[in-house]
């Protein structure tokens, strides 16, 4: 209870200062509307059903794009982590592609996929791909050799070694990669929506700017923030559940 109050303190102070600034400093509401006005707008946005529709299309894009990106990165990362030769083959290519920000792929993705959902899926998948891949590779490669020795000593086949030793040993880092991947996917979806489609939260805040509806811009931004928070909390829960055995800083 006290913890909950404590974590609410900072947002409340920010809101109060914001409201006070707008009221007493006569800031134009077109530049910075007070939080009370944003809240009213947010409720209006919600009541009309537009908010739910936007949020759902954004979430749908994140889900598809993330599933594609992580779905490719996970098996490839496991394979590369477990087999040195595979690592040597793919690593140079990955090292060249990885530093290119997903945003830089926008022109090509529109040339290739046109407008609409496909280029968004592509960008989101790309954004999620690399963090998941890099963390999975590192996770597998960092599994302490002593565990492999124990398993070999007990006569484990390479399938058992993979399933019972490499995979669980790499799991903390794989989950960390997935969590980062979701975050990047979320950034990418907003960017993609500003460019390639005409619905979703990213599109909506850009559209609101055309009409100088700064209250709606902020309402959209706050929605993005809240959805991000919910997703990340969900990932953290999953983490805790799968890693009950793990002695990390977080669980200590």
């Amino acid at each position, binding site marked *: 209870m006290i913890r909950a109050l404590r974590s609410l303190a900072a947002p409340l102070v920010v809101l109060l200062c914001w409201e006070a600034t707008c009221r007493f400093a006569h800031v134009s509401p077109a530049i910075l509307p007070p939080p009370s006005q944003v809240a009213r707008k947010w409720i209006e946005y919600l009541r009309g059903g537009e908010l739910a529709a936007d949020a759902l299309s954004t979430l749908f894009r994140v889900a598809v794009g993330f599933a594609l990106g992580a779905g490719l990165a996970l098996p490839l990362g496991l394979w590369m982590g477990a087999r040195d030769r595979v690592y040597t083959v793919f690593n140079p290519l990955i090292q060249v592609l990885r530093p290119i920000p997903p945003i830089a792929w926008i022109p090509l993705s529109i040339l290739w996929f046109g407008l609409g959902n496909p280029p968004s899926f592509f960008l989101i998948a790309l954004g999620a791909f690399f963090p998941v891949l890099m963390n999975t590779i590192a996770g597998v490669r960092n599994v302490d050799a002593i565990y492999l*020795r*124990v398993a070999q*000593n*007990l006569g484990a086949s390479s399938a058992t070694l993979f399933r019972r030793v490499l995979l669980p040993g790499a799991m903390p880092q794989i989950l960390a990669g997935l969590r980062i991947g979701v975050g990047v996917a979320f950034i990418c979806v907003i960017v993609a929506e500003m460019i390639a489609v005409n619905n979703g939260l990213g599109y909506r805040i850009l559209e609101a700017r055309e009409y100088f509806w700064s209250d709606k811009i902020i309402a959209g931004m706050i929605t993005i923030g809240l959805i991000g928070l919910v997703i990340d909390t969900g990932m953290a829960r999953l983490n805790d559940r799968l890693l*009950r*055995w793990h002695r990390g800083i977080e669980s200590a």
Partner: protein
Amino acid sequence: MPEPKDQAPVVRLRGVRKQFGPDTTAASGQPIHALDGIDLDVHQGELVCLLGPSGCGKSTLLNVIAGFVKPDAGTVEAFGRPVVAPGPERAMVFQEYALFPWMTVSENIAFGLEIKKAPAAQVRETVEALLAKLSLRGFGDRFPKDLSGGMRQRVAIARALAVDSPMLLMDEPFGALDALTRRSMQEELLRIWGELRKTIVFVTHGIDESVVLADRVVVMTYRPGTVKRIVEVGLPRPRQPASPGFAAVLAELTALVQEEQMRHERDEASAGAI
């Protein structure tokens, strides 16, 4: 106990040499002669201790027998066949325990049987028996992170015992235990050994521990790691520090180890002086 010498040894090492490095990070850049010219026979049912100062190559020698380290020269045979890879007939208890942190205590102990695809009922029975035998009852569902160092070590021993292999390779398995627990674990090991007639190679740097346990003590030299002397203990069991003859063997071994320690320190000092 005296072994019939006509029986073939279960472990047979001849001229085993192992060198690490040269270590490019060390100032000297010299290779480390971890093992040199090791000849050793271990007979069926024997309990042999490897004794020597830290860094003399005890773990390396055990790893050679286990099949984890390939010697640069010499031959290694176990059960009459050359050692080419690790295998469950030479179950190892690692110096670092190496419990799988993602498995519960029971799952850790059962892992070797899981690999063998033993029937579930048998696995459960074996695990229960080992939990009881090693005073781990009630801890089966805990994860290793929740255990004390001594308990982890006992789980590691249970995991090696679960596969019921004819040979146990144990690398300072009681090193992290307090004196009392160590005493009872030594008794427990001797009981298991007497009951199951396993061949045990046991690494220790505890001189008294080697006298309590061993049929024969292999005293090693430091860099290169060679066999300095093999001492037959030959005292009746159970052995206690107060038993007749114990002190004499202890003194003999202590003298050998100290001699080696001093030679090593002198070498260090003269190396440092350069």
